[in-house]
């Protein structure tokens, strides 16, 4: 770690946030930090600040039991396909509440993610790239936080809510974008580590020691000001802002009837937390739901798992729409792969990356659109094959970014999205 220097600010070598923003956002971005002082501007920002929500059905959800049902075929399984609010689009009967949201949702039914491996699958879905030795690409969460997040945002820009575990910071999912954009993990929706003032430190002492620290810093900064000392000083100010907003992480603050709508189970609680975080200005939230790795008893498992997913997902879309946030929030439901059309002798389905589906909604997405097609029993893509790179471009375009630009770590260009692919125009509003 070497200190930053003020001198190295060549415009060519910096990804400017504003350069990425589409025209619709330009005006808001220009408000800058001052805009926050004005409540009207803040409200405006809440509406226009773009955000991303990824719902990750981990283990590998079955496309046949969700977005691309094939009833009455050798691969289709026992479930029916039902009508949805999007004329002509049918989904699996395990998603009755989601079916009523289909006018808001676009489906990509022709995804070939080219891997049947859990670890690689998660990586390709979140980075839009095949793994390459020698370079680690940042996850969509880090990219979103980097390109969409305001520098003055109080809360971390990249948060993931995991089914289990404690809270933790900074996987390497930000790669070269740096730890500032690495994920903050909230295991079982628990708040970040060390967020709350310890019991043996009174509020008066806390204030007093902060005052003393600031005095010391001011004296030090008089003769030794640098980008690094500024960053250090600013980090305490940011921590203060987050501490003041600690209540955002507390789902118990939600009225009981809201919690009931989301369902009184872990995923319901995690979805509700995700909504609170997005509302509070967090740029990117990922919620993981486990575990869809159903090599046996696929159908029973999907009844249970999707039963948990369906209602809170629909409630979440309704809430985002009611708050005027859906137009500015991209919602993606993905997994690390799909499941084999072939049903194995344990009534299970195995790993399948060749032909499966992803659902998108919200910002920049054309509700009700269906892109691509698999054959009658779902074993192959027959129309409009989509690769993970296409999706990655699409996510960025949907939130108003130019996905053909590059980052410049160490002053060398690294395309933000795989340049061999491009966005899917049919899905963009």
């Amino acid at each position, binding site marked *: *770690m*070497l*200190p*930053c*220097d*003020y*001198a190295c600010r060549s415009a060519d070598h910096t990804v400017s946030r504003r350069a990425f923003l589409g025209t619709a956002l330009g005006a808001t971005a220009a408000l800058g930090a001052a805009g926050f002082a004005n409540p009207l501007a803040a409200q405006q920002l809440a509406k226009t600040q773009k955000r991303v929500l990824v719902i990750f059905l981990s283990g590998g959800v079955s496309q046949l039991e969700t977005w691309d049902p094939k009833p009455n075929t050798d691969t289709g399984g026992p479930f029916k396909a039902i009508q949805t609010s999007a004329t002509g689009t049918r989904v699996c009967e395990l998603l009755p509440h989601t079916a009523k949201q289909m006018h808001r949702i676009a489906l990509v039914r022709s995804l070939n993610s080219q891997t049947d491996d859990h670890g690689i699958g998660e990586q390709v879905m979140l980075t839009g790239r095949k793994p*390459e*030795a*020698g*370079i680690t690409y940042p996850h969509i969460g880090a990219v979103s936080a980097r390109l969409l997040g305001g520098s003055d945002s109080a809360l*971390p820009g990249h948060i993931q809510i995991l089914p289990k575990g404690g809270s933790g*910071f*900074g996987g*390497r999912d930000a*790669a*070269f974008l*740096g*730890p*500032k954009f*690495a994920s903050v993990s909230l295991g079982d929706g628990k708040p*970040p*580590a*060390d*967020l*709350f*003032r*310890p019991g043996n*430190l*009174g509020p008066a*002492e806390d204030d*007093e*020691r902060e005052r*003393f*620290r600031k*005095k*010391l*810093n001011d*004296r*030090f*900064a008089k*003769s*030794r*000001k*640098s*980008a*690094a*000392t500024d*960053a*250090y*000083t*600013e*980090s*305490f100010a940011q*921590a203060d802002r987050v*501490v003041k907003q600690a209540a955002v992480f507390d789902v118990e603050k939600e009225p009981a009837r809201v919690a009931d709508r989301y369902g009184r189970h872990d995923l319901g609680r995690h979805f509700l937390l995700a909504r609170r975080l997005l509302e509070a200005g967090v740029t990117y939230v990922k919620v993981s739901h486990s575990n869809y790795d159903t090599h046996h008893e696929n159908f029973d498992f999907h009844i249970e798992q999707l039963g948990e997913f369906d209602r809170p997902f629909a409630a979440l879309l309704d809430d985002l729409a009611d708050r005027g946030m859906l137009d500015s929030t991209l919602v993606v439901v993905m997994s690390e792969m799909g499941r084999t059309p072939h049903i194995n002798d344990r009534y299970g389905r195995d790993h399948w990356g060749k032909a499966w589906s992803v659902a998108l909604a919200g910002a920049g997405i054309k509700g009700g659109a269906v892109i691509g097609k698999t054959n009658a029993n779902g074993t192959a893509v027959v129309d409009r094959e989509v690769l993970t790179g296409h999706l990655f471009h699409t996510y960025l375009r949907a939130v108003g970014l130019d996905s053909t630009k590059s980052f410049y770590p*160490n*002053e*060398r*260009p690294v395309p933000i999205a795989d340049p061999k692919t491009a966005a899917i125009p049919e899905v963009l509003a």
Partner: protein
Amino acid sequence: MPARCTLIVAVACFALPSAARAADPLHTRIDKHIDTGFGDLKKHAAPRAGDEEFLRRVYLDLTGTTPATAELYRFLADSAGDKRTKLIDELLAGPGYARRMAWHFDVMLMERRPDSKVPRPAWEAYLRTAFADNKPYNALVREVLASDGSDPKVRAAAKFLLDRDLEPHLVTRDIARVFLGRNVQCAQCHDHPTISDYKQADYYGIQAYLSRSFLFPNAQAPTAVIAEKAEGDVTFMSVFDKNKTLNSTRPRMPGGKPADEPKVEKGKEYKVAPAANVKPEPAYSRRARLADAVTGADNPAFARNAVNRVWALMMGRGLVHPLDMDHGDNPPSHPELLDELAAAFVSHGYDLKWLVREIALSDAYQRSSETPAGLDDPPAEKYLVAVLKPLTPEQFAYAVMQATGHTDAERAALSKLGPKATEEALDARLAARLAPFRNVLGRGGEAGADTFSSTLDQTLFLKYGGAVRGLLPPRAGNLADRLGKITNPDAAADELFAAVLARRPTADERKDVADALRGTKDRQTTINELVWALVASAEFRFNH
């Protein structure tokens, strides 16, 4: 005869009024180069750092931690003209040097990647012994690149390759970056688009040394060793080449000549032929030549990168910067100095301790970090003002433990063991307390993270985390305990600032401490929080 020699030297001096002379010690030559790099430097540069500033800096750089209060007062009281030189020599001879360098080279070589095949304790012990013995740098790197992991005595040295699972692209990239100062990653797929020096053939020239090697029995086995086949060549084509020409190269260092390779008779390719569950051994090993090729005299990039990295370690910024971007379009800030450092390093037998000492003795190193009035935003590459260096996680943890009195308490407890009370034994006792600092402050250790950032988790960890707060409350003899017993507020301020920031407080700071202590209902709590405020200050966070 003596008179004539003097005359010759005098003439030589006269003929080269401003240039550095080989007869001068290296630190003098360093300063001449730095002075030459900036006209009128003396007028603009910051003055020599005061004793307090120098003491803290040199302790952190050469031992990894801050000085004890007694050291501060001893140094301030010493009026000898050569006391800085004596201190540098003392610290280099002490056990802290090996610890500090082991920390640094661990991060440089392994970049805080999780352990895969070589456990951390063995690796740390290996590095520490190397620096305690002042093993020449070329010998160290030779071991790191030549060990195949099969000899338990030097298996740890193979961590660089083994813990990267011998992944060809990763290893190629990191050999080029870490040992040659060239980030040739882009050249994996094509000649570098913007850096004309970085060619795809250079990339595959490095890879060719290792492309026949593989992990045996397999990459998943934690006990795997490096094995090699007798054949196989690297091939590559540029993604920009419409004709898709397939190229190949023999092993070679960037810009160097391809290795001469012996013709091996058909049927005699192997000493141990490949078979099921048998580790093959080729008659001719490409891998065996890698270490020599990297460290050899005909590969000037090796010494050049080494001195640049040591320079950056001490000075907070490389002469070539970023450290792995050594190429024609990114010239060093002081080209002659870099050449001279590299040449001197080689002629001194790749002696790292000597190099560190010479840099520490230079005026450039000993300059104050306070920007002189009238000099706004001084360019870092001119070394007019000492560059602030964020403490590494290890330095930070050790400095906190030193400041709060934890280290002294552990040392006192340890002293009962008599001769077993070594610095290694102390480090073993401090390891559990170091771990969370490494874990939280050490993220982002990977390539390219050369800008300081302080993430939310790090700040919350410092604010409210148990690792720091747990060190604050009074325990017999620790800082809070000592402060609690001092009734005179000025004396309390002196003790507090000496222990934490290794300096005497200013009049304003004395007054602030006195005000805080006078106004409090709970004196001990206030003392704890004053200690915290100093530990969390920017002054503490940086080596300045």
